[in-house]
C-alpha cells in the first residue's frame, strides 16, 4: 500500500505528461504482482467495489477526537477522507506501528468483507499506515483516486515499461486485449514481461483501437485528389465502437471506455456478431437531435425509462472492423463499405442506419458542399481514402476531418488565470466578455474562456499586459481593466442557463489578439445571441 500511496501522491502533484509516465513506469517495474495489477485497475476502470465509508469513518473518528476539533479540522482541510487521514492518531514511535498491509491483501479482503465489520478492519489498516497511506486507502475505498491520470495514460506507461523489458507490445496491442482481461491483470503482466504468450481474446467483445483522422489543413486541400476519397457528413455525436462476441455486446467510447450501461436501448437490442464503428446520436423521428440532447445520456451509470423515451439513442454506422469472425481491417475502405452495406441491408440491427457516402468527385463541388455545412446545421465533412486499410491510431494521409469554418467574435479580456506546469508563471487562461446594457450602462458579461490559439511569443505579451493592467487579484486569478480585445474563434453558440450571459461557446480559442481595437467596439451580447442554432 505504501508504494501505491507514494505513486498517487506524486501523480497528484505532477502536471507534465512525461513525468507522469515516468512515475507510472517506475512503479510497474518496482512493484510485484498482484499489487501492480490492482493499482492499474484503480487508475483505469476502478476497483470492483466501492464502499459508502463516510458514516463508518465518522463512527471511527468519534471516540478518537473531540467533535469540535474534528469540525475545525474538516473546515480547514475541506475533504473528509484527507482530514481523517491527517489527524488519525499515530503510534508513539514508528517502531510501534504494525507492518503496513499490501495493496493486494487489502483488495482481497475487501472483496469478501461483510459491511458490518468494515469499520474494525479499516481501523486496523489505518493504524498500520502513515498519513499518506491512510489518504490513499480512503480514496481507494470511496472510488477512483483523482490524480490526473487517464486510463489511456496508464496504459501508455504500461507500454513504455513493457518496451523497457524488451517487449514489442504497443499501446494498441494492450488496448486490444484490455477488455478481455480483468484485475489484477496477471496474464497481461506475464505477457508484457515475456513470461507467457499474448492472452487469448479470440471472439471476445474487446475494444479495438480506432482509426482517427487529422484536420484538413490548407496544404492538404491543395494537394487533394478528390476522386481518391470517399466523402461523408461529419456527425455531431460521439464516436463509438460496438462489439459483439461470445454472447456479449459492449459499447465503447473513442478511448475504449465501456459506456454500454448508459445505453441499454442500443446494447440490449444488438444481435450481430462483429465490431462496428459509428456515431452515437440521439435521433427522434429520423431527425438528429442537438448534441445537448445526447449529453443528457452521457456519463450516467443508470438511465431512466423516461430518458429512453425522451432521448432515444441511435448509431449511424460508417465502418466495420469485423463481421462475424472475419477481420476486415486489412481490406480497403471501399471493400469494407461494400461488406458493411450488404450486411446491414440483410439484417439491420434496431436503432441503426448507415452514414451515406456523398457523390462528390470534383473539388469545386466538395468545396461548395463544405461551404454550405453551417447553413445546413452540419458539423463538416469527413474524407476517407478509398484504398486505406483500417489502421489503429492517427496515421497521416488517410482520414481527414474538415470542420465547418469557425465563427468569430471580438470580445474583451476580463480575467486571466495562471496556467499550470510549464505555464505556471504565465497568465494563460483567459476569460472574456461581451457588452450588454444594464440599467442604462454598458457592462461586460463573461461569455467564454480560452487557453490556446495564441503563439508562445503572443503569450509573453499577453502575460505582460495582464500584469500591467491588473485591477484585483484572487489567488491565481487576476481581474484586468477592460482594455484588450481578443478575436475569439468558436464552433457554435448554445443556450446555457448556467451562465450569467445565458450562452455558452463551443470550442472557443483565441484567434487573434486585437492590440489595435478599442474595447468599446467589441461585440455585444445580442450579436452573439443571434448565432444560437435551432
Amino acid at each position, binding site marked *: 500500500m505504501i508504494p501505491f500511496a507514494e505513486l498517487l501522491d506524486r501523480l497528484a*502533484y505532477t502536471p*507534465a505528461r512525461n513525468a507522469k509516465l515516468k512515475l507510472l513506469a517506475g512503479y510497474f517495474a518496482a512493484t510485484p504482482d498482484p499489487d501492480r495489477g490492482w493499482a492499474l485497475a484503480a487508475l483505469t476502470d476502478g476497483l470492483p467495489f466501492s464502499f459508502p465509508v463516510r458514516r463508518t469513518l465518522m463512527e471511527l473518528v468519534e471516540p478518537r477526537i473531540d467533535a469540535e476539533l474534528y469540525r*475545525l*479540522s474538516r473546515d*480547514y482541510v475541506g475533504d473528509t477522507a484527507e482530514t481523517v487521514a491527517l489527524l488519525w492518531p499515530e503510534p508513539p514511535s514508528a517502531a510501534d506501528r504494525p507492518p503496513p498491509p499490501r495493496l493486494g491483501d487489502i483488495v482481497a479482503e475487501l472483496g469478501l468483507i461483510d459491511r458490518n465489520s468494515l469499520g474494525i478492519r479499516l481501523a486496523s489498516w489505518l493504524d498500520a499506515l502513515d498519513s499518506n497511506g491512510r489518504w490513499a486507502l480512503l480514496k481507494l475505498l470511496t472510488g477512483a483516486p483523482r490524480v490526473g491520470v487517464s486510463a489511456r495514460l496508464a496504459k501508455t506507461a504500461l507500454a513504455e515499461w513493457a518496451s523497457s523489458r524488451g517487449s514489442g507490445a504497443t499501446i494498441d496491442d494492450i488496448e486490444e486485449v484490455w477488455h478481455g482481461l480483468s484485475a489484477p491483470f496477471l496474464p497481461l503482466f506475464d505477457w508484457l514481461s515475456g513470461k507467457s504468450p499474448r492472452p487469448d481474446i479470440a471472439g471476445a467483445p474487446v475494444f479495438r483501437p480506432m482509426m482517427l483522422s487529422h484536420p484538413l489543413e490548407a496544404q492538404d486541400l491543395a494537394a487533394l485528389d478528390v476522386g481518391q476519397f470517399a466523402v461523408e457528413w461529419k456527425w455531431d455525436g460521439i464516436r463509438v465502437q460496438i462489439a459483439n462476441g461470445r454472447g456479449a455486446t459492449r459499447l465503447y467510447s473513442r478511448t475504449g471506455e465501456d459506456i454500454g450501461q448508459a445505453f441499454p436501448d442500443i446494447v440490449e437490442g444488438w444481435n450481430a456478431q462483429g465490431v462496428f464503428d459509428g456515431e452515437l446520436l440521439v435521433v427522434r423521428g429520423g431527425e438528429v437531435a442537438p448534441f445537448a440532447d445526447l449529453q443528457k445520456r452521457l456519463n450516467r451509470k443508470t438511465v431512466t425509462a423516461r430518458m429512453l423515451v425522451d432521448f432515444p439513442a441511435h448509431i449511424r454506422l460508417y465502418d466495420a472492423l469485423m463481421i462475424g469472425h472475419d477481420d476486415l481491417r486489412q481490406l480497403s475502405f471501399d471493400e469494407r463499405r461494400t461488406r458493411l452495406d450488404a450486411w446491414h441491408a440483410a439484417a439491420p440491427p434496431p436503432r441503426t442506419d448507415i452514414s451515406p457516402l456523398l457523390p462528390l468527385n470534383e473539388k469545386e463541388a466538395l468545396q461548395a458542399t463544405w461551404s454550405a455545412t453551417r447553413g445546413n446545421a452540419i458539423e463538416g465533412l469527413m474524407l476517407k481514402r478509398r484504398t486505406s486499410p483500417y489502421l489503429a491510431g492517427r496515421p497521416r494521409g488517410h482520414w481527414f476531418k474538415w470542420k465547418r469554418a469557425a465563427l468569430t467574435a471580438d470580445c474583451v479580456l476580463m480575467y486571466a488565470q495562471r496556467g499550470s506546469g510549464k505555464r505556471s*508563471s504565465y497568465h494563460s487562461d483567459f476569460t472574456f466578455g461581451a457588452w450588454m446594457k444594464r440599467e442604462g450602462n454598458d457592462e461586460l458579461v463573461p461569455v467564454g474562456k480560452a487557453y490556446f490559439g495564441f503563439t508562445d511569443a503572443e503569450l509573453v505579451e499577453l502575460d505582460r499586459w495582464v500584469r500591467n493592467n491588473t485591477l484585483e487579484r484572487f*489567488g491565481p486569478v487576476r481581474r484586468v481593466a477592460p482594455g484588450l480585445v481578443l478575436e475569439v474563434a468558436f464552433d457554435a453558440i448554445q443556450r446555457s442557463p448556467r451562465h450569467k450571459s445565458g450562452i455558452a461557446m463551443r470550442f472557443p480559442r483565441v484567434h487573434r489578439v486585437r492590440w489595435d481595437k478599442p474595447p468599446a467596439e467589441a461585440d455585444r451580447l445580442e450579436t452573439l445571441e443571434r448565432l444560437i442554432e435551432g
Partner: protein
Amino acid sequence: MQPFETWLYPTPEGLYCEPGRFFIDPSRPVDRAIITHGHSDHARAGHDQVMATRETLAVMRLRMGAAGAGKSPHTIELGQPLTIGDVRVTLHPAGHILGSAQVLIEYKGARAVVTGDYKRRRDPTASPFELVRCDLLVTEATFALPVFRHEPDTREIGRLLASLAAFPERAHLLGAYSLGKAQRLIVLLREAGWDRTIYLHGAMVGMCDLYRSLGIELGALEPVADTKRESLAGEIVLAPPSALADRWSRRIPDPVTAFASGWMRVKARARQRGVELPLVISDHVDWPELISTIEDTGAEEIWVTHGREEALVRAATLMGRRARALALLGRENEAEDEAE
C-alpha cells in the same frame, strides 16, 4: 496571585508589559520593544529602544538598514536575567530560527513565558528550544489543528534527493522563506550528503552571508543570476515562495517545483501553489508538540496568539487549563506561507 491581565495585556501596538514598560514584538513603533526573532511580522522598524539577542539585532540591521535595530539597540544574552522596570526578564532559546528567543517575565512571584515562534525539534541553525516552567504560557498557534503533524525533516530531505535522482535532467526549484528556512534546508542537505553547489535567488544571498558570518557553515553557494541555464539541470535552486510562480522562475528551464512548509501537509494548499514536490518542513511546533508544551511547562493559564486560536483554546480547555485567544494586530493578516 494578581491576575495576569492587570500587568500583561494586548494593546493596539502589541503585547504590553506594564511594570516593565515594554512591548513584545510590537507591530507599530514604540519606546521600548523586546523582539523575539527577526521575521518581518515580529521585528518591525522604527522603535527607540530594541532589546533582543545579538543575532536578532544583526538580522534586523540587514533587513531594515543600519537603523533597523532601533535608535538604541540592546543585546540580551540568552539565560542572563535582566531587570527592566519592576520585572525580571530572561530570554531562552525558542529553536525557531537563528537568534530566536522566548521571553520569560517574572513579576511578584508569577512567571509568564511569551514563546514568540518556536519549534521543539532539532535545527542545526538554531539553539534548541529550552523548556521554561511557568504559570502563564503565551503561545503561538500557527499550526494549531490536529491535522498538522510535521514529518521528520530527514524523511522530507530524502524525498527531495530521491526526486533529484529520478529527474536528473531537471533543476529542482525549492521555495523556502529567506530567513531561517532557507539556511536550515541548506545545512540539512549538507548533512544528507549533498555537497554540490546550491544556487540562490538574489534575495537570499545577503541572509546566507549573515548566517555564515554568525558561524553557520553553509558550503558552496552561487547566485543563480551568474549561472548558465543549461548547467542547472539536476541542481537545487533556492528561492523565496513568492518567486516560484513569478516571472523570475522562467529562467529555470522545466524545473521540479518544490516548497518546504508546514502548510504542505494539506494537499489542497500544495496544489493551490502549483507545487510538484511539497515538503512538510516547518520552523513551528506541530499539534502534538503544542499539546505537550502546554503540559510540560506546567502553565495553568494559556493565551493563544496568531494562528488557529480557536482549536488550541478548545484543546487547552479540555486539558483543564484556563485558556483564551489573544488577538494581536499585525499578525492575523500575514499571508500564511510567508509567515513561516
